[in-house]
């Protein structure tokens, strides 16, 4: 009797445990499937360059013709110029960018060990600038900011994009992903509407790419200047008549992390040229 009761209690316990597992497992599976399933498989990723014209490709390929190289040159000067209270340059701490900055941009956005914040490369540069160099931060989208990021990002040419979405980065990734798939604006389109469902097709005269972030900043002929990824995202938001989020805003940072995760393995190509 007593034994039977114990057994049935045990069975009930196992049953409850199974029930709990049964409830938890589908939830976790659904979560895993919905949040890290890749809509574009890794072996089908293509950088934006693949969707531009031959003229643009030629311009980007030639470092003497690529207008983005003017920003790279300016960035190299900034790298080597002492600034701030202690008169230090980027080079004072990091030496030759060609080795010290190789592959760095490919890991961003990333959680900063000190501040525990998600930083993209622009924000990381500014953290060094005001924290270590004690010089005024570069203004978002300023010529100097575009120049230094062009210089730093160029050192990751050929390095595959690979960001972490573990730990504290995870919630940013989830928010970025949710943003990416939410239809917004008066035109009611999501990023995925164009860049996952319709890449390769034409929106009037423009061929839609997969919307990859691996080659920013870009020199855009339409802008006649250099622009950051966030500037490009604002152009997409403007197109669908959605609220324009500021360059460097938390929402755009989260999307940037999602885009970088989505671009895993694509090689760095900065500075890029676009129509």
């Amino acid at each position, binding site marked *: 009797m007593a034994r039977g009761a114990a057994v049935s209690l045990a069975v009930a316990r196992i049953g409850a445990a199974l029930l709990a597992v049964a409830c938890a497992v589908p939830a976790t599976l659904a979560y895993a499937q919905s949040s890290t399933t890749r809509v574009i498989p890794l072996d089908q990723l293509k950088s934006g360059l693949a969707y531009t014209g031959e003229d643009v490709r030629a311009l980007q390929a030639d470092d003497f013709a690529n207008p983005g190289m003017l920003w790279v040159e300016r960035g190299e000067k900034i790298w080597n110029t002492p600034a701030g209270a202690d008169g230090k340059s980027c080079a004072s701490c990091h030496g030759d960018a060609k080795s010290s900055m190789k592959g760095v941009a490919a890991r961003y956005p990333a959680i900063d060990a000190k501040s525990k914040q998600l930083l993209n490369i622009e924000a990381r540069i500014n953290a060094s600038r005001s924290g270590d160099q004690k010089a005024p931060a570069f203004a978002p989208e300023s010529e100097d900011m575009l120049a230094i990021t062009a210089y730093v990002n160029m050192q990751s040419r050929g390095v595959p994009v690979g960001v972490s979405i573990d730990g504290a980065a995870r919630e940013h990734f989830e928010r970025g992903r949710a943003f990416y798939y939410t239809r917004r604006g*008066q035109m009611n389109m999501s990023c995925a509407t164009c860049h996952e469902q*319709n890449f390769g097709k034409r929106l009037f*005269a423009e061929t839609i790419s997969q919307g990859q972030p691996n080659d920013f900043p870009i020199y855009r002929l339409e802008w006649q200047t250099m622009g950051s990824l966030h500037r490009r995202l604002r152009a997409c938001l403007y197109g669908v008549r959605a609220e324009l989020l500021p360059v460097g805003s938390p929402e755009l940072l989260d999307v940037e992390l999602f885009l970088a995760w989505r671009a895993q393995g694509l090689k760095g190509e900065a500075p890029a040229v676009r129509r």
Partner: protein
Amino acid sequence: MAPRPFSRLHRTACARPAFARLLATLALAALPAHADLLPAQISADSVPRPLTATPGDAAHGRALLLARENANCILCHAIPEARFSGNLAPPLDGVGARLSAAQLRLRVADNRQVHPSTIMPSYFRSEGLTGVAAQYRGKTVLTAQEVEDVVAYLQTLK
């Protein structure tokens, strides 16, 4: 001839034009700027009654389809006379033969009601949208009269 936003008042009063105009003026003052289709206007996959008392102007409708602002239909659709267009959507030649004015009206005004997951924007809908820029919030892309103009043009594509 200023395009008037559609309103419930306006529609029920359409039978008596002078009175309708008076009521429409009152409605303009009294109602918010948005003007979406009411469920009662939709029948199966169509909106049988015109949204305004003024018949659509096909020439103006054509200009709207080609305009780089607002409607900008050729962003996605090819139309016979446009030298250039996008190809995200099926070409519109022959659409006036395939679909009636009533069917075209619902597709232009709110294609979601025909194809719930369509990528085509709803041109006469201001609600059920997320993150709309302040200057467009509560407004439709096209006015009721512009929808009629576009429908009139589409009917010529036979």
